């Protein structure tokens, strides 16, 4: 249904950082350790490109069809509830890519997954997205960036009998 339409990285396809790793093979242990611990310019650029590539970008554990964590699943459920347009969303499975899993935490300066970006800006994790959903701000944000269709002004705001 909706979930299978969301574009996401699946095993067998290259993740956002796979091509970067191939360009910089590290021969020494030290350089490998440094590569793991610091967010390199290339990794940062790759992630920046990913967050700018789509109106909504979600870094999660698992895929929309098969989330691998309750918080990631909750974010997907909220997105489905709002009816996000699949073509406007890109998801990345951090479990497939340890470099991304660490890199995104450094990039966003945020310690946990999932992480939601809208219009290239970090929005928050599961708690924040849930809070925005409950306050109505998420719907506004998604409408503003055309991730969900706007409801026409003359339509009834509430179900009517």
């Amino acid at each position, binding site marked *: 249904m909706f979930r299978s339409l969301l574009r996401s990285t699946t095993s067998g396809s290259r993740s956002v950082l796979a091509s970067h790793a191939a360009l910089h093979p590290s021969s020494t242990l030290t350089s490998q350790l440094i590569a793991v611990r610091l967010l390199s310019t290339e990794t940062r650029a790759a992630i920046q490109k990913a967050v700018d590539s789509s109106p909504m970008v979600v870094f999660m554990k698992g895929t929309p069809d098969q989330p691998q*964590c309750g*918080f990631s699943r909750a974010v997907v459920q909220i997105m489905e509830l709002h009816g996000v347009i699949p073509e406007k969303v890109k998801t990345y499975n951090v479990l497939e890519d340890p470099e991304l899993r660490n890199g995104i935490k450094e990039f966003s*300066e*945020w*310690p*946990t997954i999932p992480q939601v970006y809208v219009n290239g800006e*970090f*929005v*928050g*994790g*599961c*708690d*924040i997205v849930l*809070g*925005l959903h409950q306050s109505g701000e998420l719907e506004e944000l998604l409408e503003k960036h055309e991730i969900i269709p706007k409801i026409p002004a003359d339509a009834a705001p509430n179900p009517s009998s």
Partner: protein
Amino acid sequence: MPVSVEDLEKTLRSAIKVEYLEIVDESSGCGESYRILVVSDAFEGKGTLARHRFVNEILKDYISQMHAFSQKSLTVKQYQATLN
């Protein structure tokens, strides 16, 4: 070394004036997954994301050891409103 409730409480209270605090270990005692509620007027004037980043910074050494962490950060007034 798993993170204890005491670790989190001590660190928070020494960083900001905490009016009310709830720390729930959601990993059944393993110290790996925590959900917290922090009530403090240190949050006054900060938006939600700023509050979360603020708390994340205070607890960052502990959060990096956890599998999962979620928080609710309210001012005293906001918390009192939830009690009514």
